[in-house]
Protein backbone atom coordinates (compact mmCIF):
# COMPACT_ATOMS: atom_id res chain seq x y z
CA UNK A 1 0.00 0.00 0.00
CA UNK A 2 1.39 3.42 -0.90
CA UNK A 3 2.20 5.79 1.92
CA UNK A 4 0.10 8.88 2.47
CA UNK A 5 -3.57 9.53 2.98
CA UNK A 6 -6.31 7.30 1.61
CA UNK A 7 -8.27 10.24 0.23
CA UNK A 8 -6.99 13.69 -0.55
CA UNK A 9 -8.62 16.80 -2.03
CA UNK A 10 -6.04 19.12 -3.50
CA UNK A 11 -7.28 22.68 -4.11
CA UNK A 12 -10.58 21.42 -5.43
CA UNK A 13 -12.97 23.89 -7.07
CA UNK A 14 -16.39 22.57 -8.04
CA UNK A 15 -19.05 24.56 -9.88
CA UNK A 16 -22.67 24.11 -10.81
CA UNK A 17 -22.78 26.22 -13.94
CA UNK A 18 -21.58 29.63 -12.72
CA UNK A 19 -22.18 28.82 -9.08
CA UNK A 20 -18.88 28.29 -7.31
CA UNK A 21 -19.64 25.66 -4.68
CA UNK A 22 -16.32 24.28 -3.44
CA UNK A 23 -13.55 26.86 -3.20
CA UNK A 24 -9.95 25.66 -3.02
CA UNK A 25 -10.92 22.84 -0.74
CA UNK A 26 -8.29 20.55 0.78
CA UNK A 27 -9.06 17.43 2.78
CA UNK A 28 -6.77 14.65 3.83
CA UNK A 29 -8.18 11.45 5.24
CA UNK A 30 -5.87 8.73 6.52
CA UNK A 31 -6.63 5.07 6.29
CA UNK A 32 -8.52 3.89 9.37
CA UNK A 33 -9.94 7.26 10.34
CA UNK A 34 -13.46 8.49 10.92
CA UNK A 35 -13.53 12.05 9.61
CA UNK A 36 -16.57 14.21 9.96
CA UNK A 37 -17.55 17.11 7.74
CA UNK A 38 -19.62 19.78 9.43
CA UNK A 39 -21.37 22.78 7.97
CA UNK A 40 -24.72 24.40 7.47
CA UNK A 41 -27.07 24.17 4.55
CA UNK A 42 -25.55 24.98 1.19
CA UNK A 43 -22.04 24.91 2.62
CA UNK A 44 -20.88 22.34 0.06
CA UNK A 45 -21.09 19.18 2.16
CA UNK A 46 -23.20 17.19 -0.25
CA UNK A 47 -21.21 18.56 -3.17
CA UNK A 48 -18.10 17.19 -1.47
CA UNK A 49 -19.70 13.75 -1.44
CA UNK A 50 -20.77 14.08 -5.08
CA UNK A 51 -17.26 15.17 -6.04
CA UNK A 52 -15.80 12.08 -4.36
CA UNK A 53 -18.29 9.79 -6.11
CA UNK A 54 -17.86 11.47 -9.48
CA UNK A 55 -21.41 12.68 -9.87
CA UNK A 56 -19.99 16.16 -10.27
CA UNK A 57 -16.43 16.81 -11.40
CA UNK A 58 -14.13 19.50 -10.08
CA UNK A 59 -13.26 22.25 -12.54
CA UNK A 60 -9.79 22.52 -11.07
CA UNK A 61 -7.85 20.62 -8.47
CA UNK A 62 -7.33 16.96 -7.85
CA UNK A 63 -9.04 14.17 -5.92
CA UNK A 64 -6.55 11.49 -5.01
CA UNK A 65 -7.62 8.08 -3.73
CA UNK A 66 -4.95 5.70 -2.56
CA UNK A 67 -2.29 7.67 -4.40
CA UNK A 68 -4.14 7.75 -7.74
CA UNK A 69 -5.93 10.82 -9.14
CA UNK A 70 -9.55 9.81 -9.65
CA UNK A 71 -11.20 13.11 -10.56
CA UNK A 72 -11.58 12.11 -14.22
CA UNK A 73 -12.71 8.53 -13.55
CA UNK A 74 -16.25 7.28 -13.98
CA UNK A 75 -18.30 6.61 -10.87
CA UNK A 76 -18.20 2.89 -11.63
CA UNK A 77 -14.38 2.90 -11.65
CA UNK A 78 -14.33 4.72 -8.33
CA UNK A 79 -16.66 2.13 -6.80
CA UNK A 80 -14.41 -0.63 -8.16
CA UNK A 81 -11.41 1.05 -6.50
CA UNK A 82 -13.13 0.84 -3.12
CA UNK A 83 -15.30 3.89 -2.49
CA UNK A 84 -18.92 3.28 -1.52
CA UNK A 85 -21.62 5.77 -0.60
CA UNK A 86 -24.34 5.86 2.01
CA UNK A 87 -26.55 8.41 0.33
CA UNK A 88 -28.50 11.24 1.86
CA UNK A 89 -32.04 10.14 2.73
CA UNK A 90 -30.83 6.54 2.26
CA UNK A 91 -32.03 6.32 -1.35
CA UNK A 92 -32.75 2.60 -1.37
CA UNK A 93 -34.32 1.22 -4.53
CA UNK A 94 -37.84 1.37 -3.13
CA UNK A 95 -39.50 -1.35 -5.22
CA UNK A 96 -36.67 -3.82 -4.90
CA UNK A 97 -36.34 -6.22 -1.99
CA UNK A 98 -33.83 -5.75 0.80
CA UNK A 99 -31.75 -8.57 -0.65
CA UNK A 100 -31.78 -7.02 -4.13
CA UNK A 101 -30.65 -3.73 -2.62
CA UNK A 102 -27.72 -5.53 -1.00
CA UNK A 103 -26.95 -7.17 -4.34
CA UNK A 104 -26.88 -3.75 -5.97
CA UNK A 105 -24.27 -2.72 -3.41
CA UNK A 106 -22.06 -5.54 -4.71
CA UNK A 107 -22.86 -4.67 -8.34
CA UNK A 108 -19.26 -4.11 -9.45
CA UNK A 109 -17.96 -7.28 -7.82
CA UNK A 110 -17.98 -10.86 -8.95
CA UNK A 111 -20.25 -13.31 -7.20
CA UNK A 112 -18.34 -15.79 -5.13
CA UNK A 113 -17.43 -16.77 -1.61
CA UNK A 114 -16.61 -13.15 -0.80
CA UNK A 115 -20.19 -12.16 -1.55
CA UNK A 116 -21.47 -14.68 0.99
CA UNK A 117 -18.89 -13.50 3.52
CA UNK A 118 -19.99 -9.91 3.09
CA UNK A 119 -23.64 -10.89 3.47
CA UNK A 120 -22.79 -12.62 6.75
CA UNK A 121 -20.97 -9.51 7.91
CA UNK A 122 -24.03 -7.37 7.16
CA UNK A 123 -26.31 -9.85 8.94
CA UNK A 124 -24.11 -9.89 12.02
CA UNK A 125 -24.08 -6.09 12.19
CA UNK A 126 -27.80 -5.84 11.44
CA UNK A 127 -29.73 -8.96 12.48
CA UNK A 128 -32.91 -7.08 11.57
CA UNK A 129 -31.84 -6.86 7.94
CA UNK A 130 -31.68 -10.63 7.72
CA UNK A 131 -35.26 -10.88 8.95
CA UNK A 132 -36.45 -8.49 6.23
CA UNK A 133 -34.54 -9.86 3.24
CA UNK A 134 -37.53 -10.48 1.01
CA UNK A 135 -39.45 -7.38 1.97
CA UNK A 136 -39.75 -4.57 -0.55
CA UNK A 137 -37.45 -1.90 0.84
CA UNK A 138 -39.88 1.00 0.37
CA UNK A 139 -42.07 -0.51 3.10
CA UNK A 140 -39.33 -0.52 5.77
CA UNK A 141 -39.17 2.01 8.59
CA UNK A 142 -36.61 4.81 8.32
CA UNK A 143 -34.25 3.12 10.77
CA UNK A 144 -34.43 -0.19 8.95
CA UNK A 145 -33.82 1.58 5.65
CA UNK A 146 -30.69 3.17 7.09
CA UNK A 147 -29.44 -0.27 8.16
CA UNK A 148 -29.96 -1.55 4.62
CA UNK A 149 -28.29 1.55 3.17
CA UNK A 150 -25.19 0.99 5.31
CA UNK A 151 -25.30 -2.74 4.58
CA UNK A 152 -25.53 -1.99 0.87
CA UNK A 153 -22.37 0.13 1.10
CA UNK A 154 -20.56 -2.67 2.95
CA UNK A 155 -21.46 -5.12 0.16
CA UNK A 156 -19.06 -3.22 -2.09
CA UNK A 157 -16.28 -4.27 0.34
CA UNK A 158 -15.10 -0.65 0.29
CA UNK A 159 -11.98 0.85 1.81
CA UNK A 160 -13.74 4.19 2.18
CA UNK A 161 -17.41 4.77 2.94
CA UNK A 162 -18.79 8.25 2.29
CA UNK A 163 -21.84 8.87 4.42
CA UNK A 164 -24.21 11.71 3.76
CA UNK A 165 -26.32 12.52 6.83
CA UNK A 166 -26.62 9.02 8.31
CA UNK A 167 -28.75 10.32 11.21
CA UNK A 168 -31.23 12.26 9.10
CA UNK A 169 -34.85 11.52 9.97
CA UNK A 170 -34.04 8.87 12.56
CA UNK A 171 -35.33 8.71 16.11
CA UNK A 172 -32.72 9.54 18.78
CA UNK A 173 -32.55 5.94 19.93
CA UNK A 174 -31.80 4.84 16.42
CA UNK A 175 -29.24 7.56 15.87
CA UNK A 176 -27.15 6.19 18.72
CA UNK A 177 -27.44 2.69 17.37
CA UNK A 178 -26.37 3.80 13.91
CA UNK A 179 -23.38 5.66 15.26
CA UNK A 180 -22.33 2.63 17.33
CA UNK A 181 -22.42 0.56 14.17
CA UNK A 182 -20.45 3.15 12.21
CA UNK A 183 -17.75 2.92 14.89
CA UNK A 184 -17.84 -0.86 14.72
CA UNK A 185 -17.44 -0.80 10.92
CA UNK A 186 -14.50 1.53 11.35
CA UNK A 187 -12.91 -0.77 13.92
CA UNK A 188 -13.21 -3.57 11.37
CA UNK A 189 -10.93 -1.51 9.12
CA UNK A 190 -13.06 0.70 6.90
CA UNK A 191 -12.27 4.40 6.66
CA UNK A 192 -15.26 6.70 7.05
CA UNK A 193 -15.86 10.19 5.74
CA UNK A 194 -19.15 11.47 7.08
CA UNK A 195 -21.27 14.53 6.43
CA UNK A 196 -23.48 15.11 9.44
CA UNK A 197 -25.82 17.78 10.74
CA UNK A 198 -25.82 16.22 14.17
CA UNK A 199 -22.42 17.62 15.11
CA UNK A 200 -22.61 16.36 18.67
CA UNK A 201 -22.91 12.76 17.60
CA UNK A 202 -20.50 13.17 14.72
CA UNK A 203 -17.75 14.64 16.91
CA UNK A 204 -18.32 12.00 19.55
CA UNK A 205 -17.21 9.20 17.22
CA UNK A 206 -14.96 11.04 14.74
CA UNK A 207 -11.21 11.26 15.06
CA UNK A 208 -11.04 14.51 13.15
CA UNK A 209 -13.39 16.97 11.50
CA UNK A 210 -13.53 19.70 8.92
CA UNK A 211 -15.90 22.67 9.11
CA UNK A 212 -17.16 23.90 5.77
CA UNK A 213 -18.77 27.29 5.29
CA UNK A 214 -19.99 28.60 1.93
CA UNK A 215 -17.65 26.26 0.14
CA UNK A 216 -14.51 26.93 2.14
CA UNK A 217 -12.85 24.91 4.86
CA UNK A 218 -12.88 27.38 7.75
CA UNK A 219 -11.74 25.07 10.52
CA UNK A 220 -10.23 21.64 10.92
CA UNK A 221 -8.68 19.65 13.69
CA UNK A 222 -9.15 16.77 16.06
CA UNK A 223 -12.71 16.08 17.09
CA UNK A 224 -11.82 16.62 20.72
CA UNK A 225 -10.37 20.08 20.03
CA UNK A 226 -13.33 21.11 17.90
CA UNK A 227 -15.74 20.05 20.61
CA UNK A 228 -14.03 22.48 22.97
CA UNK A 229 -14.06 25.36 20.47
CA UNK A 230 -16.56 27.95 21.71
CA UNK A 231 -17.69 28.95 18.23
CA UNK A 232 -18.34 25.35 17.30
CA UNK A 233 -20.23 24.85 20.54
CA UNK A 234 -22.43 27.82 19.80
CA UNK A 235 -22.95 27.14 16.12
CA UNK A 236 -23.25 23.38 16.03
CA UNK A 237 -23.42 21.69 19.37
CA UNK A 238 -26.52 23.61 20.30
CA UNK A 239 -27.68 22.10 17.05
CA UNK A 240 -28.75 25.41 15.66
CA UNK A 241 -28.49 25.81 11.94
CA UNK A 242 -25.85 27.99 10.47
CA UNK A 243 -26.90 30.60 7.96
CA UNK A 244 -24.39 30.50 5.16
CA UNK A 245 -22.98 33.52 3.39
CA UNK A 246 -22.53 37.06 4.65
CA UNK A 247 -18.97 36.73 5.78
CA UNK A 248 -17.50 40.18 6.43
CA UNK A 249 -14.20 40.80 4.76
CA UNK A 250 -12.71 42.71 7.68
CA UNK A 251 -13.85 40.15 10.13
CA UNK A 252 -12.46 38.75 13.35
CA UNK A 253 -10.62 35.39 13.43
CA UNK A 254 -12.02 32.46 11.63
CA UNK A 255 -13.73 30.60 14.43
CA UNK A 256 -15.81 33.55 15.58
CA UNK A 257 -17.10 34.01 12.03
CA UNK A 258 -19.25 30.93 12.32
CA UNK A 259 -22.65 32.33 13.07
CA UNK A 260 -25.68 31.02 14.75
CA UNK A 261 -28.92 32.23 13.20
CA UNK A 262 -30.99 34.88 14.91
CA UNK A 263 -34.04 32.70 14.67
CA UNK A 264 -33.97 29.10 13.52
CA UNK A 265 -35.95 28.60 10.34
Amino acid sequence: MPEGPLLRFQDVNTYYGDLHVLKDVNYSIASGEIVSLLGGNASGKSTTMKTIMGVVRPRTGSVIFDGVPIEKMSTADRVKRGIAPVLEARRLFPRMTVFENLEMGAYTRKRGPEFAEDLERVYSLFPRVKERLNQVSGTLSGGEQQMVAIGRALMARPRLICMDEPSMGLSPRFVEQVFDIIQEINRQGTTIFMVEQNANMALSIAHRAYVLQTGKVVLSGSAAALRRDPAIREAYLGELQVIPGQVDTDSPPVSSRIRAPVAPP
Partner: protein
Amino acid sequence: MALSDLLLQQTINGLSLGAMYALLALGFTLVYGILELINFSHFNVFMVGSFIGLWTLQLMGINGQAVVMTGLPLIGVMMTALVVTMVLSGGLGVLIERLSLRPLRDVKGPAPMITTIGVSYVLFNIVLLTVGADSKNYPNPLPPVQFAIGDAVLRLREILIWVIAVLLMLGLHLFVQRSRMGKAMRATAQDPEAARMMGVEVDRVIVIAFFLGSALAGAGGLIFGLYYNFTSFIIGFNAGLRAFTAAVLGGIGNVPGAMLGGVIIGLIEAMGAQFIASAWTDVIIFSILVLVLVFRPAGLLGRVAPNKS
Protein backbone atom coordinates in the same frame (compact mmCIF):
# COMPACT_ATOMS: atom_id res chain seq x y z
CA MET B 1 -72.53 -19.24 -35.71
CA ALA B 2 -73.62 -19.38 -32.11
CA LEU B 3 -72.75 -16.47 -29.85
CA SER B 4 -70.45 -18.59 -27.73
CA ASP B 5 -68.52 -19.68 -30.83
CA LEU B 6 -68.28 -16.07 -31.98
CA LEU B 7 -66.94 -15.07 -28.59
CA LEU B 8 -64.44 -17.91 -28.68
CA GLN B 9 -63.32 -17.04 -32.21
CA GLN B 10 -62.85 -13.38 -31.35
CA THR B 11 -60.99 -14.30 -28.18
CA ILE B 12 -58.58 -16.33 -30.32
CA ASN B 13 -58.19 -13.42 -32.72
CA GLY B 14 -57.91 -10.89 -29.91
CA LEU B 15 -55.24 -12.84 -28.06
CA SER B 16 -53.17 -13.04 -31.25
CA LEU B 17 -53.40 -9.30 -31.85
CA GLY B 18 -52.86 -8.75 -28.14
CA ALA B 19 -49.68 -10.83 -28.17
CA MET B 20 -48.32 -8.64 -30.96
CA TYR B 21 -49.31 -5.38 -29.24
CA ALA B 22 -47.85 -6.59 -25.95
CA LEU B 23 -44.46 -7.31 -27.55
CA LEU B 24 -44.49 -3.86 -29.07
CA ALA B 25 -45.74 -2.16 -25.90
CA LEU B 26 -42.83 -3.64 -23.91
CA GLY B 27 -40.39 -1.57 -25.94
CA PHE B 28 -42.20 1.66 -25.10
CA THR B 29 -42.31 0.74 -21.45
CA LEU B 30 -38.68 -0.39 -21.10
CA VAL B 31 -37.34 2.85 -22.55
CA TYR B 32 -39.85 5.04 -20.73
CA GLY B 33 -39.09 3.33 -17.42
CA ILE B 34 -35.44 4.32 -17.64
CA LEU B 35 -35.35 7.56 -19.64
CA GLU B 36 -38.91 8.86 -19.16
CA LEU B 37 -38.85 9.21 -22.92
CA ILE B 38 -41.63 8.24 -25.30
CA ASN B 39 -39.77 6.66 -28.17
CA PHE B 40 -41.85 7.19 -31.30
CA SER B 41 -39.20 5.67 -33.55
CA HIS B 42 -40.36 2.39 -32.03
CA PHE B 43 -43.38 2.47 -34.40
CA ASN B 44 -41.16 2.04 -37.42
CA VAL B 45 -38.57 -0.22 -35.81
CA PHE B 46 -41.52 -2.61 -35.72
CA MET B 47 -42.18 -1.97 -39.42
CA VAL B 48 -38.51 -2.43 -40.37
CA GLY B 49 -38.47 -5.59 -38.23
CA SER B 50 -41.33 -6.93 -40.27
CA PHE B 51 -39.28 -6.44 -43.46
CA ILE B 52 -36.18 -7.98 -41.89
CA GLY B 53 -38.29 -11.07 -41.15
CA LEU B 54 -39.59 -11.07 -44.72
CA TRP B 55 -36.11 -10.89 -46.25
CA THR B 56 -34.74 -13.52 -43.88
CA LEU B 57 -37.50 -15.96 -44.84
CA GLN B 58 -36.95 -15.21 -48.53
CA LEU B 59 -33.21 -15.77 -48.18
CA MET B 60 -34.03 -19.21 -46.82
CA GLY B 61 -35.92 -19.91 -50.02
CA ILE B 62 -39.43 -19.36 -48.75
CA ASN B 63 -41.57 -17.28 -51.05
CA GLY B 64 -45.24 -16.58 -50.48
CA GLN B 65 -47.30 -19.41 -49.10
CA ALA B 66 -46.23 -21.99 -51.72
CA VAL B 67 -43.46 -23.57 -49.67
CA VAL B 68 -44.96 -25.59 -46.85
CA MET B 69 -42.72 -27.07 -44.21
CA THR B 70 -43.29 -29.36 -41.25
CA GLY B 71 -41.39 -30.78 -38.32
CA LEU B 72 -37.80 -29.87 -37.60
CA PRO B 73 -37.16 -27.88 -40.80
CA LEU B 74 -40.15 -25.67 -39.96
CA ILE B 75 -38.93 -25.11 -36.41
CA GLY B 76 -35.42 -24.39 -37.69
CA VAL B 77 -36.63 -21.88 -40.25
CA MET B 78 -38.89 -20.13 -37.76
CA MET B 79 -36.18 -19.97 -35.09
CA THR B 80 -33.70 -18.59 -37.59
CA ALA B 81 -36.14 -15.95 -38.84
CA LEU B 82 -37.01 -14.98 -35.29
CA VAL B 83 -33.43 -14.75 -34.04
CA VAL B 84 -32.13 -12.85 -37.09
CA THR B 85 -35.08 -10.43 -36.98
CA MET B 86 -34.68 -9.79 -33.28
CA VAL B 87 -30.91 -9.30 -33.38
CA LEU B 88 -31.00 -6.94 -36.35
CA SER B 89 -34.00 -4.99 -35.02
CA GLY B 90 -32.28 -4.74 -31.65
CA GLY B 91 -29.20 -3.45 -33.42
CA LEU B 92 -31.30 -0.84 -35.19
CA GLY B 93 -32.64 0.33 -31.83
CA VAL B 94 -29.11 0.59 -30.44
CA LEU B 95 -28.03 2.55 -33.50
CA ILE B 96 -30.93 4.97 -33.08
CA GLU B 97 -30.01 5.51 -29.43
CA ARG B 98 -26.34 6.06 -30.21
CA LEU B 99 -26.79 8.40 -33.16
CA SER B 100 -29.83 10.43 -32.26
CA LEU B 101 -30.55 10.19 -28.54
CA ARG B 102 -27.27 9.92 -26.68
CA PRO B 103 -26.10 13.35 -27.94
CA LEU B 104 -29.30 14.77 -26.41
CA ARG B 105 -28.94 12.94 -23.09
CA ASP B 106 -28.65 16.08 -21.01
CA VAL B 107 -31.10 18.16 -23.02
CA LYS B 108 -34.20 18.92 -20.99
CA GLY B 109 -37.69 19.25 -22.40
CA PRO B 110 -39.30 17.63 -25.42
CA ALA B 111 -36.31 17.69 -27.82
CA PRO B 112 -35.40 13.98 -27.47
CA MET B 113 -39.04 12.95 -27.97
CA ILE B 114 -39.37 15.13 -31.07
CA THR B 115 -36.14 13.58 -32.32
CA THR B 116 -37.69 10.13 -32.08
CA ILE B 117 -40.59 11.33 -34.26
CA GLY B 118 -38.02 12.53 -36.80
CA VAL B 119 -36.17 9.20 -36.73
CA SER B 120 -39.49 7.45 -37.19
CA TYR B 121 -40.16 9.42 -40.38
CA VAL B 122 -36.64 8.76 -41.65
CA LEU B 123 -37.16 5.00 -41.31
CA PHE B 124 -40.64 5.24 -42.83
CA ASN B 125 -39.40 7.10 -45.89
CA ILE B 126 -36.27 4.99 -46.39
CA VAL B 127 -38.46 1.88 -46.59
CA LEU B 128 -41.01 3.63 -48.80
CA LEU B 129 -38.34 4.82 -51.24
CA THR B 130 -36.37 1.58 -51.37
CA VAL B 131 -38.99 -1.18 -51.32
CA GLY B 132 -41.95 0.78 -52.66
CA ALA B 133 -45.42 1.62 -51.54
CA ASP B 134 -47.16 -1.64 -52.45
CA SER B 135 -47.93 -4.31 -49.88
CA LYS B 136 -45.58 -7.28 -49.92
CA ASN B 137 -46.82 -10.84 -49.78
CA TYR B 138 -45.29 -12.36 -46.63
CA PRO B 139 -43.52 -15.70 -46.83
CA ASN B 140 -45.23 -18.22 -44.62
CA PRO B 141 -44.15 -21.86 -44.56
CA LEU B 142 -46.73 -22.94 -41.97
CA PRO B 143 -48.88 -25.93 -43.01
CA PRO B 144 -52.60 -25.11 -43.08
CA VAL B 145 -53.33 -27.07 -39.93
CA GLN B 146 -56.34 -25.94 -37.99
CA PHE B 147 -58.55 -27.14 -35.20
CA ALA B 148 -62.30 -26.66 -35.09
CA ILE B 149 -63.78 -25.88 -31.70
CA GLY B 150 -67.47 -25.74 -32.38
CA ASP B 151 -67.71 -23.25 -35.22
CA ALA B 152 -64.57 -21.45 -34.08
CA VAL B 153 -61.26 -22.13 -35.78
CA LEU B 154 -57.85 -22.19 -34.17
CA ARG B 155 -55.07 -22.12 -36.75
CA LEU B 156 -51.50 -23.26 -36.31
CA ARG B 157 -50.29 -19.68 -36.87
CA GLU B 158 -52.20 -18.48 -33.82
CA ILE B 159 -50.68 -21.18 -31.65
CA LEU B 160 -47.24 -20.28 -33.00
CA ILE B 161 -47.78 -16.59 -32.25
CA TRP B 162 -48.88 -17.31 -28.69
CA VAL B 163 -45.95 -19.63 -28.05
CA ILE B 164 -43.44 -17.09 -29.40
CA ALA B 165 -45.00 -14.22 -27.45
CA VAL B 166 -45.29 -16.11 -24.17
CA LEU B 167 -41.72 -17.41 -24.38
CA LEU B 168 -40.34 -13.95 -25.16
CA MET B 169 -42.29 -12.29 -22.38
CA LEU B 170 -41.30 -14.99 -19.92
CA GLY B 171 -37.69 -14.54 -21.00
CA LEU B 172 -37.91 -10.78 -20.56
CA HIS B 173 -39.55 -11.16 -17.18
CA LEU B 174 -36.83 -13.53 -15.97
CA PHE B 175 -34.13 -11.25 -17.37
CA VAL B 176 -35.51 -8.17 -15.63
CA GLN B 177 -36.20 -9.93 -12.35
CA ARG B 178 -33.21 -12.26 -12.03
CA SER B 179 -30.20 -11.19 -14.06
CA ARG B 180 -27.57 -8.77 -12.87
CA MET B 181 -28.25 -6.43 -15.78
CA GLY B 182 -32.01 -6.73 -15.27
CA LYS B 183 -31.62 -5.67 -11.67
CA ALA B 184 -29.43 -2.77 -12.76
CA MET B 185 -32.23 -1.76 -15.16
CA ARG B 186 -34.81 -1.77 -12.40
CA ALA B 187 -32.50 0.10 -10.05
CA THR B 188 -31.83 2.71 -12.73
CA ALA B 189 -35.55 3.11 -13.38
CA GLN B 190 -36.20 3.64 -9.67
CA ASP B 191 -33.30 5.98 -8.88
CA PRO B 192 -30.77 6.65 -11.64
CA GLU B 193 -28.35 8.63 -9.50
CA ALA B 194 -28.26 6.03 -6.73
CA ALA B 195 -27.83 3.26 -9.32
CA ARG B 196 -24.91 5.12 -10.79
CA MET B 197 -23.31 5.39 -7.36
CA MET B 198 -23.57 1.61 -6.98
CA GLY B 199 -21.30 1.44 -10.03
CA VAL B 200 -24.00 0.89 -12.65
CA GLU B 201 -22.95 2.26 -16.04
CA VAL B 202 -26.22 3.94 -16.90
CA ASP B 203 -25.38 4.37 -20.59
CA ARG B 204 -25.01 0.62 -20.88
CA VAL B 205 -28.34 0.04 -19.19
CA ILE B 206 -29.95 2.39 -21.72
CA VAL B 207 -28.37 0.54 -24.64
CA ILE B 208 -29.67 -2.78 -23.29
CA ALA B 209 -33.16 -1.33 -22.88
CA PHE B 210 -33.16 -0.12 -26.48
CA PHE B 211 -31.81 -3.43 -27.72
CA LEU B 212 -34.39 -5.52 -25.88
CA GLY B 213 -37.31 -3.24 -26.72
CA SER B 214 -36.38 -3.08 -30.40
CA ALA B 215 -35.73 -6.82 -30.59
CA LEU B 216 -39.23 -7.45 -29.22
CA ALA B 217 -40.64 -4.95 -31.73
CA GLY B 218 -38.87 -6.91 -34.49
CA ALA B 219 -40.47 -10.12 -33.21
CA GLY B 220 -43.80 -8.27 -33.28
CA GLY B 221 -43.15 -7.26 -36.89
CA LEU B 222 -42.45 -10.86 -37.88
CA ILE B 223 -45.63 -11.94 -36.12
CA PHE B 224 -47.57 -9.26 -37.98
CA GLY B 225 -46.40 -10.65 -41.32
CA LEU B 226 -47.09 -14.26 -40.41
CA TYR B 227 -50.54 -13.34 -39.09
CA TYR B 228 -51.75 -11.10 -41.92
CA ASN B 229 -49.70 -12.62 -44.80
CA PHE B 230 -48.49 -9.16 -45.86
CA THR B 231 -46.36 -6.28 -44.74
CA SER B 232 -45.97 -2.72 -45.92
CA PHE B 233 -44.10 0.48 -45.10
CA ILE B 234 -47.26 1.82 -43.49
CA ILE B 235 -47.98 -0.81 -40.81
CA GLY B 236 -46.02 0.96 -38.06
CA PHE B 237 -48.50 3.71 -37.39
CA ASN B 238 -51.65 1.81 -36.46
CA ALA B 239 -49.94 -1.02 -34.64
CA GLY B 240 -47.53 1.38 -32.93
CA LEU B 241 -50.27 3.68 -31.74
CA ARG B 242 -52.30 0.79 -30.35
CA ALA B 243 -49.26 -0.70 -28.66
CA PHE B 244 -48.39 2.68 -27.18
CA THR B 245 -51.97 2.90 -25.93
CA ALA B 246 -51.54 -0.56 -24.44
CA ALA B 247 -48.42 0.56 -22.59
CA VAL B 248 -50.21 3.62 -21.19
CA LEU B 249 -53.31 1.61 -20.35
CA GLY B 250 -51.26 -0.92 -18.38
CA GLY B 251 -49.17 1.78 -16.73
CA ILE B 252 -46.19 3.02 -18.73
CA GLY B 253 -42.89 1.93 -17.25
CA ASN B 254 -44.50 -1.21 -15.88
CA VAL B 255 -43.55 -4.48 -17.62
CA PRO B 256 -46.54 -6.66 -16.61
CA GLY B 257 -48.75 -3.62 -17.32
CA ALA B 258 -47.59 -3.53 -20.94
CA MET B 259 -48.42 -7.21 -21.36
CA LEU B 260 -51.85 -6.79 -19.80
CA GLY B 261 -52.55 -3.62 -21.80
CA GLY B 262 -51.59 -5.36 -25.05
CA VAL B 263 -53.94 -8.26 -24.44
CA ILE B 264 -56.80 -5.92 -23.48
CA ILE B 265 -56.35 -3.77 -26.60
CA GLY B 266 -56.19 -6.88 -28.79
CA LEU B 267 -59.41 -8.25 -27.29
CA ILE B 268 -61.19 -4.90 -27.62
CA GLU B 269 -60.17 -4.68 -31.25
CA ALA B 270 -61.40 -8.18 -32.05
CA MET B 271 -64.67 -7.93 -30.10
CA GLY B 272 -65.35 -4.43 -31.39
CA ALA B 273 -64.90 -5.55 -34.98
CA GLN B 274 -67.28 -8.48 -34.43
CA PHE B 275 -70.02 -6.86 -32.41
CA ILE B 276 -69.92 -3.20 -33.45
CA ALA B 277 -67.97 -2.47 -36.62
CA SER B 278 -64.27 -2.57 -37.41
CA ALA B 279 -64.40 1.04 -38.58
CA TRP B 280 -65.23 1.97 -35.00
CA THR B 281 -62.23 0.13 -33.52
CA ASP B 282 -60.14 3.24 -32.92
CA VAL B 283 -63.06 5.11 -31.39
CA ILE B 284 -63.63 2.26 -28.96
CA ILE B 285 -59.97 1.74 -28.10
CA PHE B 286 -59.23 5.37 -27.47
CA SER B 287 -62.49 5.99 -25.58
CA ILE B 288 -61.56 3.19 -23.21
CA LEU B 289 -58.08 4.66 -22.89
CA VAL B 290 -59.54 8.03 -21.94
CA LEU B 291 -61.88 6.46 -19.41
CA VAL B 292 -59.13 4.42 -17.77
CA LEU B 293 -56.87 7.44 -17.55
CA VAL B 294 -59.62 9.59 -16.04
CA PHE B 295 -60.18 7.10 -13.24
CA ARG B 296 -56.68 5.64 -13.00
CA PRO B 297 -54.25 8.23 -14.33
CA ALA B 298 -51.24 5.98 -13.81
CA GLY B 299 -52.79 3.13 -15.79
CA LEU B 300 -54.12 -0.22 -14.61
CA LEU B 301 -50.93 -1.46 -12.93
CA GLY B 302 -49.06 1.83 -12.65
CA ARG B 303 -48.21 3.73 -9.52
CA VAL B 304 -49.77 7.13 -9.05
CA ALA B 305 -46.49 8.90 -8.40
CA PRO B 306 -43.00 7.46 -8.84
CA ASN B 307 -41.60 6.84 -5.40
CA LYS B 308 -38.07 8.15 -5.48
CA SER B 309 -37.54 8.66 -1.78
